[in-house]
């Protein structure tokens, strides 16, 4: 039971991770090159939560895996930079990066089972991280591990400590994974769809844990999700991705109050809201994600966009400041939907 009205403290300017022009290409012998991430830039600071939102295949996971150095060893090319505390993570070798991952940066995934070792009790898994990265003795690490499991809301942690991942429910496993991520006291946490596989009441529990983490420990959080509702309640800054590029970026209040990119605008108009009116049909976006065209041939969203004109199919739009002059609202569109010019949404 808790009432959550919460306004996170944003310390503008002090960026912890700064991603610039990140490009990830997949390909190899005999296979055409595919640009999964195409010039993505964003910043996240201590105590700040930023969201990467977008639909299946838009490059959210690949972005985070590239930053974490977790892409498959072969068959891809990464360019750009990801500066964490003065070091470009993309230049680190495997060993240095794995050290960073244990110490400063952690990641949690949608499917916790695949990230947990099935034959080691969860308490031991958490303790091992602490032994390795904080140099704790075994008994002490187990003690700390119990406290951590308790902190992420695992009931009866003393007993749960000895259990194996398959003995836990999906929600408990996700908590165990968060506990493991926290065991190294990360300064940056990347959460890739951490609640997508969970029920909505369990999702609420996990989001609460993440909120507390950001507020209490000042951890920087990158939240990856396709759920605009989750973003609305959690993220300070929102980056909307489409076909490998960020198409709109703004503070959460700004982006939900004034979605100016036709895609963002369309998405918000197409999802039924629990508190909205029920009358009438939803404003569906035509076509599907698979209909996109390459950015080199114009705007990738053009085949589905109701605002598209000839220029959209010729010139790829750049990510630029909002034409009405709202600070920190970036758009990648030739014909954005500006306030007062539209009637389809709301």
């Amino acid at each position, binding site marked *: 039971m808790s009432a959550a009205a919460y306004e996170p403290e944003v310390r503008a300017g002090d960026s912890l991770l700064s991603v610039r022009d990140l490009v990830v290409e997949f390909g190899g012998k005999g296979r055409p090159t595919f640009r999964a991430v195409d010039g993505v830039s964003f910043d996240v600071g201590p105590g700040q939560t930023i969201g990467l939102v977008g639909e299946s295949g838009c490059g959210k*996971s690949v972005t985070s895996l590239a930053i974490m150095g977790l892409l498959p060893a072969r068959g891809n090319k990464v360019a750009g930079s990801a500066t964490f505390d003065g070091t470009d993570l993309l230049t680190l070798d495997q060993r240095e990066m794995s050290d960073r991952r244990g110490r400063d940066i952690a990641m949690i995934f949608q499917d916790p089972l695949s990230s947990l070792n099935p034959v080691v009790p969860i308490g031991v898994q958490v303790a091992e991280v602490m032994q390795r990265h904080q140099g704790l003795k075994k008994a002490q690490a187990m003690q700390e591990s119990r406290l951590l499991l308790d902190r992420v809301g695992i009931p009866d942690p003393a007993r749960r400590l000895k259990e194996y991942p398959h003995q836990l429910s999906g929600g408990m496993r996700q908590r165990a994974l968060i506990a493991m991520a926290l065991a190294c006291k990360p300064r940056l946490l990347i959460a890739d769809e951490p609640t997508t596989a969970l029920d909505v009441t369990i999702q*609420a529990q996990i989001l609460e844990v993440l909120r507390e983490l950001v507020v209490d420990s000042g951890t920087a959080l990158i939240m990856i999700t396709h759920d*605009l509702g989750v973003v609305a309640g959690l993220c300070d800054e929102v980056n909307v991705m489409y076909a490998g590029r960020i198409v709109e970026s703004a503070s959460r209040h700004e982006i939900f109050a004034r979605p100016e990119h036709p895609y963002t605008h369309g998405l918000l108009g197409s999802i039924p809201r*629990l508190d909205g009116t029920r009358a009438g049909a*939803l404003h569906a976006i035509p076509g599907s994600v698979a209909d996109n065209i390459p950015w080199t041939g114009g705007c990738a969203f053009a085949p589905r966009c109701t605002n598209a004109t000839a220029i959209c199919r010729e010139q790829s739009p750049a990510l630029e400041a909002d034409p009405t002059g709202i600070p920190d609202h970036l758009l990648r569109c030739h014909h954005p939907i500006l306030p007062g010019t539209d009637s389809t949404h709301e």
Partner: protein
Amino acid sequence: MSEQTSILDKKRPDGSADILLDAQDVKVHFPIKRGVIFDRTVGYVYAVDGMTLQINRGETYGLVGESGCGKSTFGRALLRLEEPTAGTVAFDGTDLSSLKGETLRKQRRNMQMVFQDPLSSLDPRQTVEALLLEGMRAHGLTKDKTAAHARLRELLSAVGLPEAALKKYPHEFSGGQRQRIGIARALSVDPQLIVADEPVSALDVSVQAQVINLLEDVQEQFGLTYLVIAHDLAVVRHISDRVGVMYLGALVEEADADDLYAMPLHPYTRALMSAVPIPDPQVEDRRERIILAGDLPSPAAPPNGCRFHTRCPWRQETKCDTERPQLREVRIEGVPATHRVACHFAEEIQSGALQPHSVTPTIVDPDADRPRPDIVEDGAPGADPFPDARPPGV
């Protein structure tokens, strides 16, 4: 189109009642077997445990609830794809359990199902045309070739696919288009009732609206009755006339969609609704969230009394853990008789006479309903594309 008629043209069996589907105290219990040589039944999964509901002709009834609460099993039991352990299901006044063989098969034509991913279970070597004709042939609807082909064209246009789609194979379509084919397939035998089990949950967000709109369009066009099963409350609320909320095998609340969302009365419904994220930061910041403690208990060991008592912030010592509350009307100003709730204390909770308290989570054994304690992953939607990726330090 000679032998197909819209149900709107059909006469009701008796003028008065317009209940199309009547489920009374339906139970589906799955035996849990253990043992290497002899399969011993060591217990039961009480997947559906006393579901009573009526669906009126032409309406959309939405069934919501969390994973494992028995929604799909109930939907399958209605269509007799699952044999109920107890209870009765009457369709259009006929008790389905009284039907056998050919008559049951004939009746099945009236009740079709739309699945989460309709084509995943179908023969990938069949064209869309073959898939659609298959169902029609089974019910003798293809004898007149010209009529059958006219019907195919009508179906495709109803679901918004080009005629060229007929010659293609399932894998050549996107998720949204596949769901259109699934809907066309259900429509092909001219049913009266469609049970749609999570019809949009596998789809991309931007495509969900298309399919929701399509379901509404064809309902009007073909005069259909729907049971829509989903875990997404916002979707269910949008599409349904009436909504039933399920928890551990039974309804805890039922009301007209607008009434339910205006005034949820059951503590579980309140928690569920407060947990649904709303894409509006202003609303999110102001919202009162009821964060439930612990997990859904296993349907193999459902709690005594009120099934929700292990997690209920309003639980009372007097009878919550001993007496199972039945769905009942409430005496609350402004709440209509159609709004029913299975909670002993709905009135006192609503008036504020009872205040929520903190709950100590109980431990739930996720293996309780599984045959053997092997490592089994539950049905998570969408597998992680990088199963090898490990978190820090593993």
